[in-house]
């Protein structure tokens, strides 16, 4: 079952050179992933686990100091695969927003502060849609907003006149303006309060149901993943440690790190003492040998230190990268 975007053994590292000393940060370290169509795909992980870098690779925007060290990212366009990372500037620019678009994290300063929002919308439209007059494009934008339940006169306001929640929803509407096949969202709700976050997630769900495209949602908040994503992957130290349908991952988490992510956070109504993951987050400068989680893993065994576990099917499409899960995998579910 090949998906919309295929990622094979992707290796992208940051190469920082300072006063003669060269440092490589292995942000995405040999990741293989298949993102299906018509689904909200979640990527979970802490800060510094490489999820934002993976998003940049998916968006084919690899600029120094980030460099490609191996592997491929291919888009499925008109059912043939093209290698996204080898596209030249012009091709990339055309694909942007028509095939793949992006929702930024904080919408504080994402819009041109001295222009009305409608000018920003027109900039995006005029750069991709040819042969239509400005007025026509504007009515297209207004109609698009109405469909999503947002009041079109917002376009006549300046960015600083709107609240954080409203600006973020305008950014999301903008990302869906040209009905792209894939929308990438990097922590879209971190800067928002709980109520505004709920409205933003609601909007993203409506967009996905309406356009039937794929939204790749990156966030550290497991609650959001449970609430909105259909299937998800969990990243740790630049690698994918578990991937599968969200229902399965929450009902039967396999990787010890996933268990911690789900159970260590407090919930209203449950006063049980919660313990956080022991030890400190891994350094991507020289990641630990073997399984990257072994220094902090409670269920460690001897060969965890030397061999890197690869993603192995525990059930039909629920994979995990952990030696312990391999043998004792009873796959009763």
């Amino acid at each position: 079952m090949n998906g919309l975007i295929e990622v094979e053994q992707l290796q992208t590292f940051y190469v920082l050179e300072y006063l003669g000393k060269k440092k490589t940060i292995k942000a995405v370290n040999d990741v293989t992933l298949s993102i299906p169509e018509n689904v909200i795909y979640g990527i979970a992980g802490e800060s510094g686990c490489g999820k934002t870098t993976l998003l940049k690779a998916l968006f084919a925007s690899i600029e120094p100091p980030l460099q490609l060290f191996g592997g491929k990212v291919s888009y499925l366009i008109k059912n043939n695969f093209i290698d996204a990372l080898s596209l030249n500037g012009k091709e990339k620019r055309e694909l942007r927003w028509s095939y793949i678009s992006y929702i930024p994290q904080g919408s504080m300063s994402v819009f041109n502060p001295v222009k009305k929002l409608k000018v920003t919308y027109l900039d995006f439209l005029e750069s991709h849609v040819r042969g239509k007059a400005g007025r026509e494009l504007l009515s297209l934008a207004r109609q698009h907003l109405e469909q999503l339940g947002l009041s079109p006169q917002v376009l006549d306001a300046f960015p600083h006149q709107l609240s954080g929640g409203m600006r973020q929803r305008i950014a999301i509407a903008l990302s869906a303006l040209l009905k792209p096949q894939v929308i990438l969202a990097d922590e879209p709700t971190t800067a928002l309060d709980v109520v505004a976050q709920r409205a933003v997630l609601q909007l993203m769900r409506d967009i996905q149901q309406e356009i039937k495209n794929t939204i790749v949602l990156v966030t550290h908040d497991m609650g959001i993943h449970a609430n909105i994503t259909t299937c998800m992957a969990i990243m740790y130290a630049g690698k994918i440690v578990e991937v599968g349908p969200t229902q399965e991952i929450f009902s039967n988490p396999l990787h010890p790190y996933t268990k911690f992510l789900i159970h260590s956070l407090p919930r209203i109504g449950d006063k049980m003492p919660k313990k956080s993951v022991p030890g400190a987050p891994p350094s991507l400068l020289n990641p630990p040998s073997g399984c990257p989680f072994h220094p902090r893993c409670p269920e460690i065994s001897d060969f965890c230190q030397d061999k890197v576990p690869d993603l192995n099917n525990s059930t039909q499409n629920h994979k995990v990268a952990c030696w312990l899960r391999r043998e004792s995998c009873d796959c009763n579910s």
Partner: protein
Amino acid sequence: MRFFRDYLVPRIIQYIVVIFCGITAVFFIPRLTGQNPVLEMIAQIQSQGSTLDPTAVESLMETLKELYGLKGTLFQQYITTWKRVFALDFGPSFFQFPTPVSELLKTYLPWTIGLFATSTLISWILGNILGGIAGYFSRKNWSKIIDALIMIIRPIPHYIFGIIVLILFAYVWQLFPVGGMMLGRRTVLNWRFIMTILRYSFLPAMTLVILGGAVWFQQMKLLVQNVKREDYVQYAQTGGVKERFIIYRYVLRNAMLPQITQLALALGQVFSGVLIVEMVFSYPGIGLLLYRGVTRGDYNLVMGITVLSILTITTAVLILDLFYPLFDPRIRHK
């Protein structure tokens, strides 16, 4: 109406306060130095060999005090200064006795205003656009070369750069006249007259544009390199917006704003530059007038020039401040 109260009223009040402080400073500072220009003047006359008997000295002292506005107590002098400022009459000039200072200023000031306005505008626009483009393509070689060149021009003061331009263009290559233009009584606006104006004002204008442009170029380049990293520019680039739009509507448009406030703040220094350049090229503006007034110790003239410059600069700053909201909607719509 909130905009009027929030933005305009404070600006106008600041305008009045600055003028008031400026004039008061110009009034008090000379008096602080404890030097009395009248005694200075008499010493100068006596040093030129003409001996005066005491009564003549006494009456001369009275008239000089009258002309300098030094009669009566400090407060009365202060009031007479303000009367002079409002009437724009600064008493007679000494080295061209009896022509009143305001007469001299009327003939020389338009020249300075012309040079000041054109050169500042050209250097600001040119410097910003070039700096913006160089900042945007900062990795290209041509922008590095211009940058190195500007790094040499930027620290050179107005007078020294003026001298070099004068030596090169007037003495060595003899393209332009060395001396200043004599002011005829009648200024008839025909083609020949305009050509002579251009010939005489080309070197000072070029000096000012290059020196001023270098400053704006560097500041704009720095601003653009920062604005390039702003979220809204990166977001527009990820959105595949045409590069043309990004440069003009996003980068230059936003980087220009601080440059307007910077221009308003730097007007005082830019104006001083104009006066100095006028001296080098003996361009017939109030800079030259200042040079002659100072070398001959003509207090009234220098006082008049100072007060007039304060009025011109503060008015120009006020105009710039009033223009700023047109460019920055964040101030117009709170």
